[in-house]
């Protein structure tokens, strides 16, 4: 069968790596290269994604997990034998014989037999209800047995074991236990401290974890009833999944006389050749560089190496980096480089936050110059950056702790992505280096993420590198002087923050004064509202007085939101969403009198739409007489503080959330800021007020209040993050004072709190350091500035209603006392609506 023009390749094993080898070989093959591929698989189905096996229990089907359909094999001319393991290799004749008797000759034989579950020899492992966790068939057995089981355990607290434990939770068992022989979870990836944090997180999800337990016997009759440990303790379970490690499938290689390792694995050289040069071994059955690589990435790399070699190329399998990042039952776990190296061989820096379930460890060389490795649990956002810093041996900044803590004031940490060498791999999916990206940005003019995705595919795979790519873009542009400064507009050569400081020192209170002193030209629709916001945030004087009315955005100019058709909407303040029946009636009467459309808003207030400009002062006069105030729904300012009903009525409430919400709303009402602000107060952990979706949110605890900041909706929703725990009301308000004032002073225009935080060097830990720990020593000033604004608050609608000069401006025509005749409405569900755009 062997001809010169056609190479016969036989692959044993249709797992992920065996499949990947076929895929790569076909993709690399040139049109003049003739190959006949035969693939034997032991399992009844085609290759599937074993890495995400546990998702089978979370609702994925076997089809979802399939890597390629049976048609794919046929279409590509692959002869595929399923449920038909190879039982014999004749190396003299160069042929294999399968279980079903198929005989196939080969020029090259690829062993991708993978691994099986390692089952320790414990008495009782043969009992019913004891499973391994390796194939879809295993999962089907587990699934069907779990229907009658209540308590399940997993033997083994490694990566796979924890995946299996998640599966037990997903299957709805009442108790799910993890039993680990070592004194910590995931002993191959993380250290004691990291394991403790991970354990806390998993326990909070309902897993019960037993460490340093050696199982002596599996007890019961025909079926498992419990596990007996050598410390004489007993755990009652009615099913057990063994996930105590893997055992390379090298039995066929042994029969064929290939060299294997006494502890398992087919020995291969750097070309992944076995002791027979015509036979290669790849994946978890191969022992390369004295180890079994039990991860998918090195398996794929092995497939790549052999596919290249067989097509006449050159490639070696190098010792593979075993750094990993994964999400285990919702918790990030990552390790990179040498995670375990100890002093004195290195200097170790650890950060641990039990409350948030975060642990970070980095190992730095003795001279402090390079990163040797590390561990991240609970927050692995910096993984890509750290991995690159470690791999490329980037020189570290003097304060290497900044790598995991973020810079805390002062100079920014020096080892950003711009410190990487040009050959540092940024996008590992598409193999794009930093140098390639720099070239695209500075030589080809691709300045946006979208442009780069098109030009070099960076960031198009998993997307994990996108933040780094963005940093490189702005870094290169800065270096090239393209990006100068975030100045306001052509009329002001300052950033918002610079201008705020200047105006504060100068004491200017009108736009004219600010423009004369610090700007040029006549201003525009960008700088006018920005200066208006600064003046309001600094002095809190009525925004329509002096020359300020004309610099307000149109909503602020008429203290109402302009709507489709040119009418305005009216939103009276209803602090905390609490309102008396009398006040509700007033709103109803006003709406009837002026024929307004009424709707409940998302912030627990009532919006009245369709008011003519000319009617606004009269409408507000009635509302103010009834005790209402402006709701500032038109301003970049504090909008509402939403609340749940809290402990006054709710049987679950632990604190009076309504009272606190009213206090908070009354304190900050009218406060103008770079973007609109929303808040909420929840009376217990059930969080009915959705405080964690607000710019600042408060949740009652048994002992006080938890304060969350920098969450919001907007186009990209983001949850608020915990700033302080169990604080009393007074402290809570003090922290909010500081937080809001710091935001007002430093945020770019129209930047929401979440975006502001995302852009902040050092992120949440820096914000906390400023607001809670006062590392900048500005807390007192921030509180003072806030108190000043609160002290001079006036309802701006009340001022307008009482001031004939201001009131006069609320008129559509300057020369006729009539309303805009062009305004028209339509009817919908018994109310009116704006006429559709023409």
């Amino acid at each position, binding site marked *: 069968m062997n001809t010169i023009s056609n190479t016969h390749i036989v692959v044993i094993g249709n797992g992920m790596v065996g499949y990947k080898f076929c895929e790569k070989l076909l993709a690399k093959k040139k049109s003049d290269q003739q190959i006949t591929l035969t693939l034997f698989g032991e399992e009844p189905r085609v290759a599937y994604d074993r890495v995400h096996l546990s998702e089978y229990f979370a609702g994925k089907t076997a089809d979802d997990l399939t890597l390629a359909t049976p048609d794919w094999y046929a279409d590509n001319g692959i002869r595929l034998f399923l449920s038909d393991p190879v039982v014999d290799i004749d190396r003299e004749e160069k042929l294999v014989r399968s279980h079903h008797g198929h005989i196939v000759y080969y020029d090259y034989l690829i062993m991708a037999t993978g691994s099986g579950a390692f089952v320790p020899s414990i008495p009782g492992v043969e009992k019913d209800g004891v499973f391994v966790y390796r194939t879809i068939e295993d999962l089907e057995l587990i699934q069907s047995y779990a229907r009658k089981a209540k308590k399940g355990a997993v033997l083994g607290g490694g990566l796979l074991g924890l995946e299996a434990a998640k599966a037990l939770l997903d299957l709805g068992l009442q108790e799910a236990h993890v039993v680990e022989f070592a004194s910590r979870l995931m002993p191959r990836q993380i250290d004691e401290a990291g394991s403790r944090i991970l354990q806390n997180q998993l326990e909070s999800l309902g897993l019960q974890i037993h460490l340093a337990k050696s199982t002596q016997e599996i007890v019961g009759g025909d079926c498992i009833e419990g596990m007996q440990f050598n410390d004489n303790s007993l755990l009652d379970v009615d099913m057990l999944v063994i996930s105590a490690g893997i055992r390379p499938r090298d039995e066929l290689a042994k029969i064929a006389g290939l060299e294997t390792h006494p502890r398992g694995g087919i020995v291969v050289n750097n070309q992944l050749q076995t002791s027979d040069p015509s036979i290669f071994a790849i994946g978890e059955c191969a022992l390369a560089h004295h180890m079994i690589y039990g991860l998918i990435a090195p398996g794929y790399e092995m497939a790549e190496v052999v596919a290249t070699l067989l097509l006449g190329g050159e490639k070696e399998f190098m010792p593979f980096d075993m750094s990993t990042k994964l999400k285990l039952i919702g918790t990030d776990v990552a390790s990179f480089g040498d995670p375990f190296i100890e002093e004195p061989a290195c200097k170790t820096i650890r950060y641990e936050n039990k409350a948030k379930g975060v642990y970070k460890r980095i190992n730095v060389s003795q001279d402090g110059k390079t990163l040797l490795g590390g561990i991240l649990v609970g927050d692995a956002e910096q993984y890509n950056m750290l991995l690159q810093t470690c791999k490329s041996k980037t020189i570290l900044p003097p304060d290497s702790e900044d790598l995991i803590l973020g810079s805390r004031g002062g100079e920014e940490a020096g080892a950003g992505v711009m410190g990487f060498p040009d050959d540092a791999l940024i996008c590992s999916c598409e193999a794009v280096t930093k140098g390639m990206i720099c070239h695209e940005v500075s030589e080809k003019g691709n300045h946006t993420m979208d442009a780069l995705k098109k030009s070099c595919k960076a960031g198009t795979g998993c997307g994990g590198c996108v933040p780094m790519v963005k940093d490189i873009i702005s870094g290169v542009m800065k270096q090239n002087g393209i990006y100068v400064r975030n100045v306001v507009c*052509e*009329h002001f050569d300052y950033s918002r923050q610079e201008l705020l400081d200047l105006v504060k020192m100068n004491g200017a209170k009108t736009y*004219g004064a600010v423009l004369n002193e610090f700007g040029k*030209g*006549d*201003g*525009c*629709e960008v*700088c*006018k*509202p920005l200066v208006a916001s600064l003046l309001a945030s600094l002095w809190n004087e009525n925004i329509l007085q002096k*020359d300020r*009315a*004309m*610099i307000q*955005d*149109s909503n602020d*100019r*008429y203290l109402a939101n*302009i709507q489709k*058709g*040119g009418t305005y909407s009216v939103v009276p303040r209803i602090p905390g969403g609490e309102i008396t029946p009398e006040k509700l009636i007033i709103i109803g009467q006003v709406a009837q009198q002026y024929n307004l459309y009424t709707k409940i808003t998302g912030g627990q207030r009532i919006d009245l739409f369709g008011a003519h400009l000319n009617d606004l002062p009269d409408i507000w006069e009635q509302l103010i007489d009834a005790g209402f105030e402006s709701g500032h729904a038109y301003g970049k300012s504090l909008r509402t503080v939403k609340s749940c009903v809290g402990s006054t009525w709710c049987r679950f409430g632990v604190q009076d959330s309504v009272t606190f919400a009213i206090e908070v709303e009354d304190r900050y009402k009218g406060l103008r800021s770079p973007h609109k602000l929303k808040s909420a107060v929840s009376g217990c952990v059930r969080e009915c007020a959705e405080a964690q979706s607000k710019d600042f949110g408060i949740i009652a605890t048994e002992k006080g209040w938890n304060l969350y900041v920098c969450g919001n909706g907007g186009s990209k929703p983001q949850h608020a993050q915990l700033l302080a725990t169990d604080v009393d009301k007074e402290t809570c308000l003090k922290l909010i004072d500081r937080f809001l004032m710091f935001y007002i002073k430093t945020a770019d225009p129209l930047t929401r709190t979440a975006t502001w935080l995302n852009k902040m060097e050092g992120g949440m830990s820096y914000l906390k350091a400023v607001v809670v720990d006062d590392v900048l020593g500005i807390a007192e000033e921030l509180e003072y500035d806030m108190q000043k604004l609160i002290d001079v608050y006036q309802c701006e609608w009340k001022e307008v209603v009482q001031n004939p000069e201001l009131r006069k*401006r609320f008129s*559509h*025509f*300057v*020369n*006729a006392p*009539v309303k*805009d005749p*062009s*305004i028209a409405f339509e009817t919908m569900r018994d109310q009116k609506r704006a006429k559709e*755009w*023409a």
Partner: protein
Amino acid sequence: METQTQNAVTWHIACHVNDIPEDGGGCALIDGKQIAIFNFARRGEWYATDNQCPHRQQMAVSRGMIGSHEGEPKVACPFHKKTFSLQSGQCLNDDSYKINTFPVMVKENLVYIGI
């Protein structure tokens, strides 16, 4: 050009100068037509345009913010921030729109619009 325009128009009294706020605008009803009038006090200039923005046919140009772009006086419609040159009426951020402009004359504290 100014002479030509002035020759062809009829002057209408629109309002008193104090009716239009400094560095702001107001709308006058002239012959059943809505005209936006701007008192660009910072430049000592007056301008008048259509009050209707051609983008969404909204009667709101007079409520827009005025300013300049590289020296050219302009107004931004409050609805979607289309900006128009106060001199030519050309939309500066969307070539497909243009508004009419009208000559303005101020005499004895009264504002006259030429149509």
